[in-house]
């Protein structure tokens, strides 16, 4: 295959999608175009030491428009968002922000890890990703704190506000849809 044939396969839709979506929230996302594949990012990556996750490769996939390769490989969920790569990129690419953006796009395409669907469910139900349990209630009492903390756990109206927001932003629906994908 000649290089001109390879270039024909570039699909800039995904590149543009990442830049457009990411730029709603973060600065300098368009710098993703200027990656020189130096691997400072992967060389700084604690997760890449343990797993097949190569963040440099994700940046290349974004440049080449390889959407399915990027969002359907669950190694994107190996990143701890430690920001070491983002701090050190010599091309000032907000690498971790690109990871967060690509993950958002994956979820919008119905791709999530089963355990993440569960955690999202906890937020929707309790307003806490880690709700209280009986063991901690007992510790709180024992050390002189209120049995329930003064969070949404103590204020049903406040929990109602959070639920209303999660409905309003479309989050509840988004997770419902993604959970169907997970079950498939």
């Amino acid at each position, binding site marked *: 295959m000649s290089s001109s044939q390879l270039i024909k396969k570039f699909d800039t839709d995904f590149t543009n999608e990442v830049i457009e979506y990411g730029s709603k*929230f973060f600065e300098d996302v368009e710098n993703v175009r200027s990656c020189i594949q130096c691997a400072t990012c992967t060389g700084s990556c*604690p*997760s890449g*030491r*343990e*797993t097949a996750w190569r963040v440099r490769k994700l940046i290349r996939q974004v440049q080449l428009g390889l959407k399915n390769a990027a969002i359907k490989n669950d190694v994107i*969920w*190996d*990143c*701890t*968002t*430690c*920001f*070491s790569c983002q*701090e050190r990129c010599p091309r000032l690419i*907000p690498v971790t*922000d690109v*990871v*967060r*953006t690509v*993950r*958002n796009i994956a*979820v919008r395409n119905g791709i*999530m*890890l089963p*355990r*993440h669907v569960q*955690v*999202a469910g906890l*937020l929707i139900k309790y*307003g*806490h*990703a*880690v709700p*209280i*349990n009986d063991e*901690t209630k007992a*510790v*709180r009492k024992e*050390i*002189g*704190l209120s049995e329930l*903390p*003064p*969070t*949404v*756990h*103590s*204020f049903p*109206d*406040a*929990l109602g*506000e*959070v639920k209303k*927001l*999660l409905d*309003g*932003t*479309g989050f509840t629906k*988004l997770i419902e849809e993604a959970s169907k994908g997970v079950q498939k």
Partner: protein
Amino acid sequence: MSKYAYFLGCLTPNRYPGIEAATIDLLRMFDIELEYMKGTSCCPAPGVFGSFDLETWLTVAARNITIAEEMGRDITLTCNGCFATLQEADHILKHNRDLLKTINGHLSKIGREYKGTSSVVHVIEILYNDIGPERISDMVVQPLDGVKVACHYGCHFLKPSSVRQRGNPENPTILEELVEAVGATPVDYRDKGMCCGAGGGVRAGKIDVALEMTRKKIEAMNEAEADCVTTPCVFCQFQFDMGQTEINNKLGADKYHLPVVFITQLIGLALGLSPRRMGLHRHRIPVKPLLDKIFA
């Protein structure tokens, strides 16, 4: 007396309430009062919810911030995850008018509005900037002489530096200075700046990957002969404390048992706070070997 709005988050009140008690009691010794923010939710956790849907993440974060705005106070907290979320949300909403409009549109449905009047300050900044190592040193009643401490900052205290705007994240020293202020000795160890392994939804989504990172960090701290690890992040604390027991269970052996204490718990020990009130007896990995060394 100065006052801060205390944002509890999830893990502090719901898993390590001793951190809540230690932090309130310790700051009170310096005439700083922490007032609870009533009705707050999950921050929401940056690694998971920021990865799922950034607009939702910002909206729920903004609601939490409005509670401090109503109190007329700046926010403090005991979790780098909460810090990452609330500080970055505040930063984004102060710099991005389009998003501010969108997010306030969501908040108007529950009668709230983000105004941007409360700053977000990490508790370690109160310890270091508002109080300072010297005043802490002056209050020591039980010096931690001879105690070797592995400091773990956690990723999100200083990174991303373009958002945090708190200086160079590569080689911070404020945790070490606080540890030295109470007579203990910070030790260098391999991969000190490395992540605990829990963030980004990795603990929730891929526990084995998270635990392998944790194991490597604990190994390095053990090689440096640390008596404990200290951190300003309850999520890192959870990962080291619960994580060691999970690793031990996987191995079927009691191999890892490095005590894990929050920075306010460690300073609290030197300033005479009760280990029991600080919940140290309820940590997964027994803190007793550390207490024995301190109170020998």
